[in-house]
């Protein structure tokens, strides 16, 4: 009787010890460096990549060309009915779109591009330039600002300048309305939103 009790106790004790070892092994936390689509570290990297693409695009003129890639007669961006570019061939039309695709598509990262301008009440209006879907909760955003002047020319479908200026255009104000009468047309905020698909 005593021996049986001891045996049972030994078994129970070994189960307790085994369970605590298993518990200790399983107790690992999701830390910021744990591999995960929701990782802060990855968001930071994506944000930095997007900011880098914007800087490069500003330097090589792709940003200017994108903001003024406007079909004067139809009153839309070239080759779209409105609401921005969605498919790969459409995104590939502009140098900015090509740069973003080259940077992000192979890494499974989606991106949206918006142009924003201020209204008289101080709020921002966002227009879609490239729209690839609803961003996830873990999206990162990079922004930059482009100044438009009255005599800046619009770009044609091949991204070469035309003789129509932003102020001389009869339809460009549907995208960005003029803000001042001093030679400055408006200042556009370009926002790139990136997220892991």
């Amino acid at each position: 009787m005593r021996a049986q009790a001891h045996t049972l106790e030994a078994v129970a004790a070994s189960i307790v010890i085994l369970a605590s070892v298993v518990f200790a092994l399983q107790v690992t936390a999701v830390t910021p460096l744990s591999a995960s689509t929701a990782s802060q570290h990855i968001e930071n990297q994506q944000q930095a990549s997007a900011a880098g693409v914007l800087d490069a695009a500003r330097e090589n003129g792709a940003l200017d060309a994108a903001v003024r890639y406007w079909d004067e007669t139809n009153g839309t961006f070239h080759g779209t009915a409105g609401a921005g570019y969605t498919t790969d061939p459409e995104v590939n039309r502009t140098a900015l779109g090509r740069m973003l695709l080259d940077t992000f598509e192979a890494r499974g990262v989606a991106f949206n591009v918006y142009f924003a301008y201020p209204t008289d009440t101080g709020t921002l209006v966002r227009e879609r330039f490239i729209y690839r879907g609803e961003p996830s909760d873990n999206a990162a955003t990079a922004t930059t600002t482009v100044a438009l002047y009255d005599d800046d020319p619009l770009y044609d479908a091949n991204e070469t300048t035309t003789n129509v200026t932003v102020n001389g255009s009869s339809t460009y104000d549907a995208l960005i309305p003029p803000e001042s009468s001093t030679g400055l047309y408006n200042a556009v905020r370009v926002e790139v939103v990136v997220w892991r698909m």
Partner: protein
Amino acid sequence: MANVSEDRSRAQLLLVGALALAVVFLSLSLLLNSVIYTENLATRQTHADAEKATEFRLAAVDGLDGAIEHANRRNTTAFADRRDAYRDAVDSWVPILANYSATDGMATDVEPDELHEGTRIVGANNTTGLVRGDGAGDWTVATDSKVRRFRLHVDPSTVGTGDEVRITFDDGTTRTVVIENPGSGPRVRIERPGPDPTCSLSDGRIDIGTGRVDGEYCPGLADARPTGNGAVSIANGDQVTATYSLVVDRHQDGFRTDVDTENYPTQCTPPSTPTYGTSSADDPYTTPAIYAATAEIGASTRDLDYRRTIRAAPDEAGDPASEPTFTQFLVTQSGNDFTVDWNTDDPNGDIDHVDVRVYYRTNDTLYASETSALESGTETFANVPDEAYYVNGTVTDAASSRRVSEIHDAGGCPP
């Protein structure tokens, strides 16, 4: 009794064991917590504010670039008009930029500072080529200048087989941009040490400032940009038709006479047909223009106070232009007396002295020389013998000098 004491010691053992386990688990959770906190700190973007400030600086430089180009494109001959247009544009752009920055949690200000006056050269007539005022195609565009934003629009259909228009930049190193047609169609070739890169030309837009042909990056073209002070000359410019514009860092007054002396070495100043006209009806013409601009920018967030001076000079290559320039160099001749009035300016404000020298034109020997420590002044050379002379002004600052040369003849012009 023995049994009772055995039970007690077992209970004590259980109690101590449970306590030990509790301490182990607590310390484990503490350890894990500190790991999470450390990794959180390690991945936190402490430089996010600095990144925002840098982005703001880039946007500010870009905005100033745009304002300079906007002001320079105006059809006017007065620098004051360009300056006002520039200030108006900047003044209306600053609040919008500040508004955007505020949404990012950053308070910003932009205070326009100085403007560096230069000269814009424009050949806007699309029925002529790269020619000077009298129509000659072999000529000097600029002497001893920093050149920025050199753009050409060549009509590709006029680039015939065998044509070879040469634009040469010489800032100590010579590089030549050649517009030619070897039979396979118009192209741009860059002559430099080593193999010559070529880029085909279909639309005709050559942007030497950004190194682009027809909007596409052309590998050797960006390297052809002069990075220092130098001369720009054109050969066979009459073989094609083209429009072009460029900006140099010298004041219009001294620049025009210096280029005229280079182009017309046998005529008195001013020559019968100057190299450049002065109104937009002439081809080509010069106007006073903004070469560069500086501004003070500031950005502050909760953790960061960022303040610096920015400088905008669109497409300038190399170091910022700091060479002095003559804002006036006027030689008045009355009989055999030469009176020279001069005024100078220097972007970095360290003019050392001004030399005015008169040379015999026939053998380049010195007739008379005056040195002045004043930034502006007058020198008179009286009773100069009947001969042809170069009247040269040289302004020297701590690191460099600039020269203006005129040709005058005490015996009557042309020499």
